Every structure is written in C-alpha cells, then in structure tokens.
C-alpha cells in the first residue's frame, strides 16, 4: 500500500523552534522517524512521500490541514500516517486535525501521540494510537504504530487492543434510576469496601507548570488575550456567549484603551455591567499601554485574542491554548496576559 507520512519541521530535520514558521512541503520517501517506521513495516507498505510543515504555521490556522491532505493525495496516498507527536501540543493538534480531515474525506489515516496530548480531541472519530510522552520512547512507539498501520491497511478497525486512545466516547443515556439514587448506592458500595466504584474516572487533572519568567520584560513583546468575550460593540462576528467553538482576533494598534460603547463583553457567565462600563477592566489595554510608554515592557502586540470560557469544553479550551501559543510565537511574542472571568 502507498503510504504518506506527516511529520513536523523538527522530525524532518529542517530545524527546531527557529523553523516552526515553515510552510508546507513534500519530501520524497521516508524521512526522520519514517525511516525506522518503514523498516518495521517491511516490504508490503511503502512510505512514498513525507509531508512536512512548521508547527506554528500548521497549528495557528485550521485550514492548513486541508492543504496538507491535498498534498498527501497528490502523492497518491492510500493511507495517511501522522506523527508520533508524543506530548507536543502544536504537533499533536496538527496530526489530529490531519487524520480527522483524511478520514472525513474517505482516506484511511492514523495518528500517534501521547493520550494526554492537548490536540488529541481534534482527531474526532479518526484513530489515534498511543505514543510515549517523550521522543526517547520512539522505538516502542513506532512498533505500535507500524502494527496499527498494517492492521488498518487490511481495512480492520483499530481498537483498544491496538493501543487506540482518545476515541472512547462517553455516550449519554437514560438509565432506570435517577442520579440521586445512584449516588446513595455508590456511597453504600464504597463504604462496603469497593473503593474503586465510580461512574466517572476521578483525578488525572492537568497541573500547568508556569513558564519561566520573561528574561527581559523591557525587551519583550507582550500580548493581551482573554476568555472574557471582549468584542467590538454589537458583536459583528457573533462570538458565542457560552460553549465557544471558536476564538477571534482584533487589532488594537493605535488604541490607548477600549472605550465603552465601542467594545463590550458578550460573556454569558457573569454580570457584564461593570465590564461594559469600562472594557479595559476585562482586557487591560489602558494599563498595558502605560507600561509600554514607561518602557516596562518592550511592545504590546498589535492584536488581541478573545473567546468565551463560559461552558466551553476542556478539549476545546486546550485547542484554543495551542492555537494561541502558535499564533503568538509566530508573531514573535514572548509573553501573554490572559484575563479570565
């Protein structure tokens, strides 16, 4: 079978963070981890081409996945492989989007990443097989991936036995007993010694380790980002007031503050009266401009990002975070102030 492999700029050997803005390109045959993957796959399957893109370029714009998919198809792909992305957020996001786009277009595809990769939710119903957390686990990860590719090539669906992760959908259903009764039964079961009984897995929450302080704040480019749903008055782009599916960017170059009546918050989760009387209190443009004039920061980035946190899923919020980080890195920004509500 003809395989096309997607890797990022780093695994293609084109450079690290300095090359993360590289646009999409195609390399002939297998490259980087693709070489060992090809060995493990044997003679039945050929990696005919490797599609490559810089992480910032690919992660900051969801439409790039269609472009990457088009390149893979142009190489005659019969099956698409993406990754392994291990725990890397931007790379994982792109791999997940790419296999989702491929599957939606009828091209079999599989991605490889760690189960905690923040991009994993974007794969939707497309298969993802587990990778280790870091690249040191390359060989066992590729062994698992090669076995999954060989199975997928036969047309068989991938299951948990193949190391499939991320797609164990939790499906809502009506049951006989109301939740209050089930809670009492659960308490009684736990008191009787069944300490593992639960309807939802407990624990496993991310602990976000703060990044190191900015080296020289006076030289840093700083961006303002918010989940407080700050938008131009009248909400021309129709940002949701709850359960966001997207985020928006607005220019603030030449503005010293956000005037009431020109900007507003459309957030549904808190009383917006005070925020709308002075939108600077939600997105502190006035104070940040002062810091810029005083030289306390290098420069304020020329646009801000906005979405609404109210009722937004963890999976979606993680994706926004990865996209924001990619877009800000691409713009040469070193620090961001995230105002939350």
């Amino acid at each position, binding site marked *: 079978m003809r395989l096309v492999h997607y890797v990022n700029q780093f695994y293609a050997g084109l450079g690290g963070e300095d090359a993360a803005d590289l646009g999409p390109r195609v390399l002939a045959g297998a490259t980087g981890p693709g070489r060992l993957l090809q060995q493990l796959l044997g003679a039945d399957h050929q990696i005919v081409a490797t599609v490559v893109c810089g992480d910032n370029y690919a992660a900051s714009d969801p439409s790039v996945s269609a472009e990457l998919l088009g390149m893979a198809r142009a190489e005659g792909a019969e099956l698409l492989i993406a990754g392994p992305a291990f725990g890397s957020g931007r790379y994982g996001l792109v791999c997940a989007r790419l296999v989702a786009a491929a599957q939606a277009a009828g091209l079999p595809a599989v991605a490889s990443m760690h189960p905690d990769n923040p991009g994993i*939710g974007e794969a939707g119903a497309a298969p993802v097989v*587990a990778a280790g957390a870091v690249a040191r686990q390359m060989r066992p990860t590729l062994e698992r991936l090669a076995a999954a590719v060989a199975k997928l090539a036969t047309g068989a669906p991938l*299951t948990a036995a193949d190391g499939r992760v991320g797609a164990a959908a*939790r499906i809502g259903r009506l049951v006989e007993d109301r939740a209050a*009764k089930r*809670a009492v039964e659960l*308490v009684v079961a*736990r008191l009787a010694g069944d300490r593992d009984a*639960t309807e939802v897995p407990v*624990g496993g929450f991310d602990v976000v380790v703060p990044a190191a302080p900015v080296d020289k704040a006076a030289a840093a480019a700083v961006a303002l980002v918010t989940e407080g749903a700050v938008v131009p008055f009248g909400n021309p782009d129709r940002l949701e007031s709850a359960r966001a599916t997207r985020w928006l960017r607005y220019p603030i170059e030449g503005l010293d503050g956000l005037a009431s009546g020109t900007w507003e918050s459309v957030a549904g989760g808190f009383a917006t009266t005070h925020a709308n009387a002075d939108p600077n209190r939600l997105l502190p443009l006035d104070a940040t401009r002062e810091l810029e004039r005083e030289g306390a920061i290098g420069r304020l980035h020329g646009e801000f990002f906005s979405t609404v946190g109210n009722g937004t899923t963890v999976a979606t919020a993680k994706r926004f975070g990865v996209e924001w980080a990619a877009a800000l890195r691409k713009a040469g920004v070193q620090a961001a102030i995230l105002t939350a509500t």
Partner: protein
Amino acid sequence: MTALRRVVHEVHSVEFGPATGYHEHHLTVGREQVESLFADPALGAVRPRLASPGESIRIITPLDVVEPRSKGRGGGVFPGFLAPVNRKRGLDTHVLRGAAVLAAGYLPRNQEGLIDMSGPAAQLSPFSRTHNVVIEFDPAEGAPLLEAEQAVRRGLLRLAVALADAAVGSAPDAVEELAAPHRPGTPTGGLPRVGVITNLQTQGAFKDVFVYGASMAGSLPTLFDPAEIEDGAVVAGQYGHPALRNPTYLHQNHPVIAELRARDGHDLHFAGVVLCPEPVEQAGKEHVSAHAAWLCQAAGFDAAIVTKEGAGNADNDLGMKVDALEAAGLTAVALYAEMSGPDGTGPPLVAGPRRGAVVSTGNYDQRLTLPAVERALGGTRLRIIDAEATAAIEVPVAMILGGLSPLGAGRLTCRAEPPAVDLEEVA
C-alpha cells in the same frame, strides 16, 4: 431537628377560572388572584399561562420553578420571605403534587433555557411532568430589573401558597411521615451515618440562592434542618446554565435527601444536611471546604454525598470539598455533569476531585433534535441559537431546564464505549 408530615394532594389537571379552587385532583387557577398576587410597582403586565404534560408547548427563558405548598391558615412556608423564621417548625405541610408555578421571560444573566412539554426533551426536564402555571411578565417601565426580579420571586412564592391553600380542606391522597435525621451518637446497629452537603450558588444579583430570605454569600457551611428545606427555607434566584440549575422546586423535593430517607434504617442512617455557599474566590473555597469537612466530622457523618449548582466555579467547589472530606477520613461521592463535547470524546470534567467517586448526571454538550411545537411561552425567539421559539431546533442538553440536575433529579448518565485502553502498557 424536626419531624414533618407531608399531606399530599395530587393534581391531574389544571385550568383557569373565576376563583382558585381544588376539587378531586383538578386545580382551578383564579386569574384575578394571580394578578393581585403579582401586583408590584416593579412589574407591568403579568400574563398567567398554563402548560400541561404532553402538550405541544415550549416554555423558553424559564426562571424559577416552585411547588405549591401550604401549612394552612396560619402560614409558615417560605420562612424568611412569607413567614417568620422564628415560628413553630414541622407539623403538616400540604403539597400540590404534580403542579408547579414558574416564571419565564428576560432578566439579566438568565441564560436561555427551555422546557418542552412533549417530545424527546420532555423526558429530561422534571418540569415537563408537572402541570405548570407559567407567569409571563413585563418589568414596569423604568423599574430596575433587580426589583422586577424580586417582585417575580415574591409573586411566585405567594401564588404557590395560594394554590396549595385551596387544597388544605380536601382529603389527601397520601400522608408521608418524614422523620428528623438521627442525632450524632444515636446507636446505628452498625449502619454508616450518611449525610448530604448541598452547595448553593452565591455570585450576586441574579445568581444567588436564598436561605431564610438572605444570600448565603460570606457564610460558613451550616448544619440545616431538612424539615425547613421541605417548607421552602431555600429559594432559588440564580439563572445561569439552565440544565445545571436547582430551582426552588427541587430543593423542596431534594432528591438526595429523599433517597437517603428511602434507605434510612436499611443500609444507612440518614445523618443530616449541610448547606454551603459557593464562594467566588479561591481562599473562600478553601475555607468553606475545610470547614464543611470539619462540620461533617463533628456531626458524626461517616460519608457525605455532595451536590453543586452551576459549572466551572462550582466544579472547583465540589472537587475541593470531596477531597477535603476524603482527607478527613469520610467517604465522599459528588454529582457532576460531564462536559466532554458533542461527541463525548473530550475530558469529562473541567475540575473535579482527586479522590472519592463521581456520579454522572449526563453530558452538557450532547445534542438533541427537538421538533417544532404549536405554542411557545415566555418569549418568541431563542436568541442564543437565533431561532423562533416554536421552530424545530438542535440544542445541547445544557439548555434543558434541570436536564443535568446537580441535585440528582434526572436519569441521565454517560458511559464510555468502547472501554478505554489500559495506559500502563504505553509508558
């Protein structure tokens, strides 16, 4: 704490008439009486409507829902609002079971929700199964909306009492004896002492819950008499996330208290109720969690079921409380709605406990397709999805009032399928 007798009068049908009355399961609502009970300088027009189970009616932008209850001529329900707190507790409380009064309309911070009286959403809201007196209203011109909101609440409580008053002289369908919780130190014959902690939202105007007529914001957790909750000591005034609200009706019929009573003496002893605020600051959440765990220990609980109201903030309160209880050696179970995205593949909890156990009340993001209806009450347009109120619509469960009831009133849950892979072998 107090014993209470619930004197139940079932309502099987409802209509408007010249005067309020109750006869053989039929409730007549006097229109003029409704108008006089809602008379208030902060309110303009008040339009009572009716909606019964099975009708092709959608109630949009619902606010609070109240079960009609009365203690007879001397009054006594809704202490802090309609009755003094310092009165004789317990005794008989008449209940119009199967009826509800509710308000519907625009108010700030009222996240738009709906109740369908028929169709697929009808099995998700507790208020699709009640005969509802729906109050549409206009705030008086120039009246502050907070005053309009307070006037609507007073009107709803008065109407709930007036309707139940009509049944006080009728022979009841059932009389239910509700014993007080067992005091600490009472011999249990080896059964565990299990109580419930109910967190109440305390986020200011339009997002507050009232205990004896006042917000619980700034309070410490307190042990509370469940007989007083039956009599309306807890009144809702918060209008966030429709599916994650606890309307007054569900406090009056607190599902976890009911289920604990149902098992009392069989495999547990009902140990009591603790009410808690949901502070908006981290330090407050920590104080309240620590104090709640201490209070449950002091009250001799072996285990507690913990409930919340709302999402985000409330999820943190719930998780911290469960962790604090378990750290103190109690067994804890929390009720959470999941937020795993429309396809159910995202992480189910935004913030949750690190130990203990969780019951799922369903997935906030799961999509429902609802057919068009003949009539809508409460408004003409669902702005949040930009649709006519009567139209066929696709909505998340999040919009169904009480659809993910944090007090455990609903029968939704979520199950993983296929089973998740064993991650140990990946490391």
